[in-house]
């Protein structure tokens, strides 16, 4: 009995030692040299695997960063400059800060601006709808409103506004990965410069029809009149194919074009309220006047009561 146990232990021990040597030799022979920095870089990355950088995922991007000579070509839109600084620190390089970007929906064809001309009853997908016909409004370039961009966003940064029927980008959550840009069959969404203090000026229309046709389909359409291009002192605006485009690298946010646009197709967002012209300022006195008149009425109605007393 004891002999059997001793034999078993001895054989297993010898077998284990032999296999250990074999495994060691195999591991030495087939060793894959991997740069340890790839692991270090990957740890710093956000791990969203969204593909916004143009690589297959965060690991692939880490490898790309390590192998790439030029840090300017590497940029993680989700992590932004902070993450890129950390990546550069890991790799012992320096990186220039890039302007943060944000997705911008260039269509203002709300239900009010762009009345429906027919009812779409098919499958709720922008791609399917775009393949079938020009859409349920007179504008064949505008937002189809089925929310392919919402489905494409991994960060929950886009939502459909039920009132306007248009997608709304949450600037805080948007990482500018570009998934929505690819998902939109009408090429409405564009990645634009976030701008100084989030202030942006852009043309919120992509309709390439002639002015009269575009205007008939949508009240807020760019009619390609070129007034904005004339007024721009920085050559930032070009008008091509009946549509104006503002180059965000040249735009100095002076907002002259916004005031000039006859259809209100140029939008200025996140500007401080004090700078806002006419409309909101005019709105306040009206409200105050109304309030005063109401108070007057109340006072007057109170008077007879007082007299009775």
């Amino acid at each position, binding site marked *: 009995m004891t002999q059997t146990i001793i034999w078993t232990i001895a054989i297993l021990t010898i077998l284990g030692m032999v296999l250990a040597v074999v495994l060691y030799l195999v591991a030495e022979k087939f060793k894959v040299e991997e740069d340890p920095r790839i692991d270090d870089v990957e740890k710093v990355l956000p791990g969203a695997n969204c593909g916004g950088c143009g690589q297959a995922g965060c690991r692939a991007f880490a490898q790309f960063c390590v192998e790439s000579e030029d840090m300017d070509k590497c940029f993680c839109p989700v992590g932004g400059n902070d993450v890129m600084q950390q990546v550069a620190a890991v790799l012992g390089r320096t990186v220039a800060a890039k302007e943060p970007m944000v997705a911008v929906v260039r269509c203002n064809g709300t239900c009010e601006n762009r009345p429906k001309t*027919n009812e779409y009853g098919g499958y709720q997908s922008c791609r*399917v709808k775009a393949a079938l*016909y020009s859409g349920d409004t007179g504008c064949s370039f505008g937002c189809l409103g089925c929310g392919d961009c919402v489905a494409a966003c991994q960060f929950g940064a886009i939502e459909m506004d039920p009132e306007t029927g248009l997608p709304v980008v949450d600037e805080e959550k948007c990482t500018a990965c570009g998934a929505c840009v690819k998902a939109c069959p009408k090429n409405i969404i564009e990645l634009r410069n976030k701008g100084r203090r989030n202030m942006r000026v852009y043309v919120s229309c992509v309709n390439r029809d002639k002015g009269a046709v575009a205007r008939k389909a949508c009240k807020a359409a760019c009619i390609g009149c070129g007034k904005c291009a004339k007024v721009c002192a920085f050559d930032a605006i070009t008008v091509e194919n009946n549509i104006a485009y503002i180059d965000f690298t040249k735009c100095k946010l002076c907002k002259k074009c916004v005031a000039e646009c006859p259809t209100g197709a140029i939008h200025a967002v996140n500007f401080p309220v004090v700078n806002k012209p006419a409309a909101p300022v005019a709105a306040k006195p009206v409200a105050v006047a109304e309030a005063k008149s109401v108070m007057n009425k109340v006072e007057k109605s109170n008077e007879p009561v007082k007299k009775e007393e």
Partner: protein
Amino acid sequence: MMKTFSIGGIHPSDKKISKDCNIEILPVPAKVYISMAQHLGAPATPIVKAGDSVKVGQVIAEPAGFISAYVHSSVSGTVKSVGPRKDLAGNFVTHVEIETEGDDWAEGIDCSDTLITEIPEDNKAILEKIKLNGVVGLGGATFPAHVKLSPPPGKKADCLILNGAECEPYLTSDYRIMLERSKEIVIGAAIMKQVLGGCPAVIGIEENKPEAIRVMSDAVAELQKTARGYDGISVMPLKKKYPQGGEKQLIDAVMKRQVKSMGLPIDVGAVVQNVATSLAVYEAVQKNMPLISNVLTVTGDCLPMDRQHNYKFRIGMPLSYIAEYAGGIPEDAAKIISGGPMMGKAIAELDASTVKGSSSLLYLTAAQTMRGTESACIRCGKCAEACPMGLEPFLLQKYARNGMMDELEENAVQDCIECGCCLYSCPAYIPLLDIIRIAKGDVIRIIRGRVQK
């Protein structure tokens, strides 16, 4: 046992409500808008300008490529403008707007009813006439007819198949021309068969049209007795099954041959033409009449019997004009379809004009067009059973939703003929065709890109 195609297919109710309505001729409206994109391939280039006066049958646009076709004026009058106008899908297409004055026909067109049974001998001249008169396939795809009738070198046609299946529910325009213009169709078949080198010709008609089978058989027998060049033409009754009128399905039913994936019918020695195309060929060759008119069905369950119509229309008539002439749009119509209910398109712009291939104005009610709420696939396999191309739609839609292009290609998504059998048979209301159609386009684009490299 009657013949039909071997795999898949469905049996929708045929609803040929307007089958007993004679073809009526629509009066010419004050204005017509003739589209430059009435055929498959490159849109034609207009050769008239505003202010020109044109006659009926005069060429107003020339083909802009090998696969393209001539377009003729369907009325006489003055060209008002040449510019973009919305087609029935709401997309802008160049149209020629013509204001009608009188009905003055261009020279050399024979407008009489006399039947010309003598077939000209010069095949080249025949093909030239078919091309110059702008004949395109009227079965749905509007592929230029002269291209189909000139097989590439090294390939020979073994059989000309005339498609009289009209397998789409509701449509009766082909049925009516088979009854009323049977001899002309047979002569057209004889002309095409001669051009193709004397191969036999088979006219395939579904069994739900016994009257058409009888009339067409009589016409063939009579012409074979009285004139030369009509041997080898026969009528073949087919079992009723959708999509019998699909090119590949019809070849399978008639010849028992299968067209390979991404192949053309001529690869198996078949040429398929619609009966309406045959009529257009007859008119082009024997009467020198360009393709400026076609027959269209106005139908729907919500129309009373006396408002069901089969109209002979001239191309360029606005659909709204036809709807108005036919007594207006019924109140309970929720959707108007151009084409059959299976493959036709819902009309987004009723002001759009008719084209060579227009085949119907079909009114469907809200109940008929309602989609059920989509639920999960229950793996019943009905779609795979129904697919006439032997595909597995449930699998394809899964791949498509996940963007798996390699798997889609392996599973032959590019062979989909978009007949809608899968969507029709799905008990879970999964939008199979909608999703597969998009994937098919993507895969075909990838395949073409690869070939170009």
